């Protein structure tokens, strides 16, 4: 059975907003739900397995400075600051899981005046 949520553009911001915890955990890519201030609201199972950070440990922490400082630059983190337009960007990146460089693709999702933003992570 294929997971309902997709990394690519077929899955929309609204679908992510409406997904349950179970649906988020069933995805075969990493999903991180963020507050407007960059706090982790939800850290899905796939991402937790990838990073080694327990889901409960991740929630409440600052994503860009505590969980994934490697994304704390103009390419990723800066794009989430007060978006004035709809953000839906996919880009290649390198995550440092356990100090090992891992090639990934990221999809950045945010909408102005919405409480949540999303970061999707797919291993290459």
């Amino acid at each position, binding site marked *: 059975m294929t997971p309902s949520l997709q990394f690519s553009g077929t899955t929309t911001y609204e679908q992510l907003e409406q997904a349950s915890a179970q649906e988020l955990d069933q995805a075969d890519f990493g999903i991180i739900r963020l507050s407007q201030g960059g706090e982790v609201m939800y850290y899905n199972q796939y991402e937790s397995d990838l990073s080694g950070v327990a889901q409960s440990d991740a929630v409440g922490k600052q994503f860009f400075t505590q969980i994934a400082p490697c994304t704390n630059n103009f390419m990723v983190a800066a794009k989430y600051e007060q978006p004035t337009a709809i953000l839906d960007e996919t880009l290649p990146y*390198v995550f440092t899981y356990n100090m090992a460089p891992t090639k990934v693709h990221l999809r950045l999702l945010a909408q102005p005046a919405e409480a949540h933003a999303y970061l999707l992570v797919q291993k290459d």
Partner: protein
Amino acid sequence: MASEAPPSLPAQSLVEFINQCPFGLIQTNASGEISLVNAYATQLLFPVAISYGQPLDNCWQLLAKIAPHIRQTITEYEVNYGSVCENERVEIVLPPPTPSLHLSFSITRLGEDSYQVAFKEVNNVVEAEETARLATMEAATQAGKAEIASGILHDIGNAVTAFGSHTAKLNALGNWEETQHIHRLRGLFAAKSDGLDDVLGAGKGDALLHFMTAVEEGLQKRQQTVQEIGQQLLEVTSHIQEVLNIQRHYTRGMEKGQRALIRPHDLIEDSLVMVGRMFEKRGIQIEKDVPYHLPSFSGDQTKMIQVCVNLLKNAAEAYDDLEDDRERCLHLQGKADDTAQEVELSIRDNAAGIAPEQLARIFERGKTSKSQGSGLGLHNCQQIVETHMGRIWAESPGPGKGTTFFIRIPFET
């Protein structure tokens, strides 16, 4: 990279700890392939790698693009263990509007096939250094300007001294003798006016007298004009001197002074021109014995004239409190001491004299026996003479018996 099972908790804490480190840490093999990298390294270097068209899996390839000299150093480092480089600054240009990234690299070889690349962002250090550099340059520019200004003030000062000297000579000319000669001649002819008509023709005697009157009056007017202009020139000179003095305050300490060869004879002559009137007014005779061929010394002409003028003024004023009618005479003498290679100038008056216990103290700053004046004159003179490698002192047999001031300065051979 094959994904592994998540590490146990202590290792996880360590990784998180290292990920919070504000230094980039990368482990590579001898070919530069990255095996370990911390979050900060990725955070900083990934955008750089993208903009330089490099994947972030080989550190040497990236360094070849952003810091070829460091890449070269790595190649040349043959030892199996040690510091390849320390705190090497690299400026990485990024596409606008992103500002340049300044990193400082320290690379250590840990083994035959293992390197540790550590780096830190130093943008704020670079900025602080730039600010300091600009401030230093600004200070140097200001100092340079002050030095130029000081030089200009000095040159103008010299020129104005010479100008003042000539103007003083002009004013010292006094009343034109020619006017008086014409006047006397006219008086002579006027007494013999009858005879003039006989010699020159009827009515011509009067005409001649009128003509001579006109010449005399013309001369007087001309003399007056010249004297007025001379006086105005003196005032202008004085004014310029004041301006220079004020401006000198701002460039104090920058003066190097211009050394020229000073002939003692000319020094005395120029100084006398400036204060000669003081002696005339007081009926003081001046006897000079300063030969023209005395050896010259290297020095600051403006300052040395100031010294001599100061001493001469003091000497003139020393007669002011005298009540007797002794014959007032100032002796100026110059001689060369070939053994000591010095030229000696002396100014001897026969005025009030100085008590022995005072003699040693008259050169102190602030000391004065005058009812007016600030007492800075002699101290200043001493400082100037000393910058000429010379010395100045005074001798006096005692009160009422006159004073002699001596200056000795090494001459140029």
